[in-house]
């Protein structure tokens, strides 16, 4: 009982501290507060994710009482996927026919924790501007615009809770000012319990649970006969793996680039016999794809960035002769 009371007090203090700061004038302070709030507060809510014709309601329970972050995410519409995360480790349960596939992933920057803890990275690529005040899901929100400094990334419009700091809504906007992707809370409440009963998947006893095998990363596979030069401004390499993929005779190298908000994947693999090369460009919602063939290698770029960015990253790859 004492601990619960303490937690209540702490939660109250936290929200007062957040409310007390008069950070409304500086858009970066609002965003900084939103980034912290999404990771430090304990909350439960339902938000709707929307991209093109797809819309899904998602329930999120997030808890952090100083022992790290715990979250449970359940997709309420359609196929009942759910994810449990502890820190940056995510376990996803997705039913597929008579089975349930369990996947392990590294998850970061998931709504409402979209913003990175370190704002300096995104300050280089985006300009922030404070907007008006709008009500979202019964909460008072402060609008902040994040406009790209160049044409290599999308813009964002954020609504941050004026009391808790948490992001209430986020819209990704392209150069023609069209919304590409949107997430918005319908309802949001702060939790002040330390009860962890909710932290388990909704197990269906009639189905088989299968752990998805991810091929181990093997550094000896990496034959770095390529170089990536002249990336679009602000993008840095944040990950690189080389692994064997089922059905392919040669290893595939997967690189991830990010500017702090948007992420792009670059795949490089040698073209082998019987493999149909891919070329061209296509789009699915906010995601752009670009495929090219360079010196007998298949280059594929996939990312939530404009077409210019994927094509430039593809053309930045060159091979040592």
């Amino acid at each position, binding site marked *: 009982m004492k601990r619960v009371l303490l937690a209540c007090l702490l939660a109250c203090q936290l929200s007062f501290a957040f409310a007390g700061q008069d950070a409304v004038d500086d858009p970066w302070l609002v965003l900084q507060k939103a980034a912290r709030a999404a990771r430090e507060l304990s909350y439960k809510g339902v938000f709707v994710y929307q991209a093109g014709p797809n819309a899904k309601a998602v329930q999120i329970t997030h808890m952090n009482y100083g022992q790290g972050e715990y979250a449970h*995410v359940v997709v309420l519409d359609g196929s009942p996927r759910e994810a449990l995360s502890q820190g940056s480790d995510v376990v996803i349960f997705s039913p597929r026919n008579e089975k349930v596939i369990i996947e392990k992933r590294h998850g970061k920057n998931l709504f409402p924790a979209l913003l990175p803890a370190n704002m300096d990275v995104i300050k280089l690529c985006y300009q922030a501007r404070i907007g008006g005040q709008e009500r979202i899901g019964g909460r008072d929100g402060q609008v902040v615009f994040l406009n790209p400094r160049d044409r290599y990334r999308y813009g964002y419009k954020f609504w941050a809770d004026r009391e808790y700091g948490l992001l209430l809504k986020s819209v990704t906007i392209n150069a023609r000012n069209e919304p590409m992707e949107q997430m918005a809370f319908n309802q949001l409440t702060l939790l002040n319990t330390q009860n962890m009963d909710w932290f388990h998947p909704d197990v269906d006893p009639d189905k088989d649970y299968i752990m998805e095998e991810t091929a181990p990363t093997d550094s000896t596979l990496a034959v770095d006969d390529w170089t990536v030069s002249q990336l679009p401004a602000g993008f840095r390499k944040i990950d690189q793996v080389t692994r064997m993929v089922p059905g392919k005779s040669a290893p595939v190298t997967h690189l991830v680039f990010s500017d702090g908000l948007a992420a792009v*994947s670059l795949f490089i693999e040698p073209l082998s016999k019987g493999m149909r090369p891919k070329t061209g460009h296509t789009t699915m*919602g906010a*995601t752009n794809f670009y495929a090219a063939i360079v010196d007998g290698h298949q280059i594929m770029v996939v990312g939530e960035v404009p077409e210019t960015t994927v094509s430039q990253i593809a053309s930045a790859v060159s091979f040592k002769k």
Partner: protein
Amino acid sequence: MKDQISALMDDELALESSEYVFTAAKADGELSECWATYHLIGDAMRGNPVFKLDFKQRLMQELESEPTVLAPRTKKPFIKTPALWSIAASVAAVLFVSWMVLQQQVETGNDIAPVEIAQNLPSEYLLAHQALAPTNSAYYIQPVGYSESGN
């Protein structure tokens, strides 16, 4: 000022000052009314019946009473518009050139004809991207078609 308008209408005003009078007549409500009235007087004196005061209303009425032709204009085929043909020709030319360029790229790459990803979404790459890239709120909200295609 009214004298100047009269002079302008009678083509008796110097070219330098006529622009100023024109602008003034357009900007000033009273002067533009004056301009219209003088023209009306002129028309009446010349016995031109069209330019009566209610000319605009009558014109609109005439337009209203005009029957709307809903039938397609089959008698005027679009061949008569040469601009359209030239646009079509340039589009065809661009398509041909880009097709040629694509064909050449293919020949340098591989013997097998490549797949246009616009026709066949590379979902295996999308799944791999979503598994590793951190900024992706969509990764747990995949459309059914993509999670199933991974089977």
